[in-house]
């Protein structure tokens, strides 16, 4: 077994698989997961077919809405499950007093973390796989392409992975599993909801000097919600994370530019920014609205929302992994505090 294989596949992974699947918790988690996901799918389907407006728009629209609900609900479910899977990974070993026993073996601390992560993430992948039949129902109605499903699953998987890595980092840092679990759920809330709130509180400001169509702040894309929404609906983000600073004093649409007469501008439902000129009495598009689901401006200009989200989440995962690997060894090469000086022997 070479070093790379040993790092990726170590006894901890095998032991974790064995012990995890022998408890009643795993089958229960799988059952609850499927029941909830299937239940929400059925409820949304029932509600949508009851609503005549959706039926009039055709079955493709129904499929798209069903997919949107399912994929967002799935990511919310995983946000509840993943911290529980990983928050006890290291602190649990500490509490069970088995961590020292692993430290005296030749297994590297990084391999311990990797083994724990691999085992937890395998369970998440299992959950994602068993949800595929439910998602395949969407194809009965159409409106969703296979590539949308694949990108949505990539975003969901990476989100779960990020939450898992952050959970292990807290598990390494905090001595108690309870504290690590609370911190991991807190971090999950910040990553998924907090970043969205950031977009509401501190939106991108668009004013008269703007030359490109504004996009929500990059940090808001850490949350998978906007990217999953854009994947499912195939529509650009409108009305979120952007504030038009030149407010029309008479009410109505905001004023984006005051050059060339009075212009009232606002985000268009089709994307882009629509402005109307009082002098000309006609409406026109100030910016190209045909941005589809690409980010129109900012740090990730031209990227798909989900690509930006995946990249940022991978960076968080990497940081969490490095942090865990540095914090775990019992005898660390670096110290957060200065070393105490041994007293000279009292004679």
């Amino acid at each position, binding site marked *: 077994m070479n070093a790379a294989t040993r790092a990726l596949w*170590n*006894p*901890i992974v*095998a*032991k974790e698989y*064995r*012990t995890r699947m*022998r*408890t009643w918790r795993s089958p229960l988690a799988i059952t609850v997961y499927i029941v909830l996901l299937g239940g929400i799918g059925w409820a949304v389907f029932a509600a949508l077919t009851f609503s005549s407006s959706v039926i009039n728009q055709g079955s493709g629209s129904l499929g798209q809405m069903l997919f949107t609900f399912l994929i967002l609900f799935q990511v919310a479910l995983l946000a509840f499950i993943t911290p529980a899977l990983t928050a006890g990974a290291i602190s649990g070993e500490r509490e*069970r*007093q*088995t961590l*020292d*026993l*692993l*430290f*005296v*073996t*030749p*297994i590297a601390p990084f391999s311990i973390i990797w083994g724990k992560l691999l085992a937890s993430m395998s369970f998440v992948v299992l959950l994602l796989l068993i949800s595929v039949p439910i998602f395949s129902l969407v194809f009965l109605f159409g409106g969703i392409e296979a590539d949308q499903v694949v990108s949505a699953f990539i975003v969901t998987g990476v989100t779960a992975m990020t939450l898992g890595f952050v959970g292990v980092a807290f598990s390494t840092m905090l001595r108690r599993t309870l504290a690590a679990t609370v911190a991991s759920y807190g971090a999950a809330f910040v990553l998924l909801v907090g970043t969205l709130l950031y977009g509401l509180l501190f939106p991108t400001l668009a004013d008269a000097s703007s030359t490109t169509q504004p996009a929500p702040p990059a940090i808001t894309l850490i949350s998978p919600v906007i990217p999953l929404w854009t994947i499912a609906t195939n529509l650009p983000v409108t009305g979120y994370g952007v504030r038009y600073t030149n407010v029309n004093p008479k009410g109505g649409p905001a004023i984006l530019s005051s050059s060339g007469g009075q212009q009232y501008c606002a985000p268009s439902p089709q994307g882009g920014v629509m402005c109307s000129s009082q002098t000309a009495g006609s409406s026109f598009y100030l910016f190209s609205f045909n941005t589809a689901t690409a980010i129109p401006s900012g740090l990730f200009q031209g990227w798909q929302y989900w690509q930006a989200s995946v990249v940022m989440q991978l960076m968080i995962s990497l940081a969490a992994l490095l942090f865990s690997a540095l914090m775990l060894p*019992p*005898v660390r090469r670096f110290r957060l505090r200065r*070393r*105490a*000086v*041994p*007293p000279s*022997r*009292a004679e």
Partner: protein
Amino acid sequence: MIAVEELSKVYGNRAALDHVSFEVPVREIFGFVGPNGAGKTTTLRILAALLAPTGGKAFIDGSDVTRDREKVHSRIGYMPDFFGVYDQLTVGEYLDFYAACYRQPKQRRRKIVDDLLALVGMTERKNQQVDSLSRGLKQRVCLARALVHDPAVLLLDEPASGLDPRARVELRENLRELQGMGKTIVISSHILPELTELCTMIGIIDHGRMRATGPVHEVIARLTSGRRLHIRVLDEKEAALEILTPLPSIRHVEAVNGMIEAEYDGDERTASDILLALTQAGIRVSSFAPVDGGLEDAFLKATSEEVG
């Protein structure tokens, strides 16, 4: 095999270890004695390269515990003062897991597990869940776990704590067997009579300082001022006390619980002279036994006052 030189460990303002030094040659069983919080576990954790010392050095088979951690880990079998078992694993799987952690090839692991289970007398428990075992049996599994990579040195932290007398006897037998296999063993314990019987060397530690170290009988002789005798006589207790008190070798004599307890200076010949003096005076002696409770006395003496 083990050399500890001026080892210190400071937590905040408190010195857990204060320039502790001792040596354990190959194949010796070194008993590490001290009250709670004396520094036994700290010393063993430093020797197991799980804790960095604040000062001083420690070597296992020539390898510095702070520099050659991997080499040290390959030479030691460490058994902490807790069991450290996983739920949902059988005894066989538990040992196989640690054997795999020690990079033993899969083909060899089955034999290693079977041999170790035979060594600790648990072959028939191979398929039982580790978590469901009694304390004594868990302790045996943990001893087997410390041996999966056939280490030359065993560091056992309070292995007898919480065990019933039978389990203690079994543990003692296991350790003797391991000594016979050439292992060097360091064992920390509160149970002093056990250590006297089992250990060849001893170190008494208190408040982070090594009070005395060396071969067991040397340490006892150094710390206790005299030997003790328990003597039973049929009727003439007062007469016996009158005969014993003036003897020059007797340091102290008194009647305790229907028998005479005498402390004397000298060796076995002196003891036989004392017996002769009693019998020649016509005292009918029914029991005459040297008392081997020396380690307890030595321990109390060492931990109650400074020993040079």
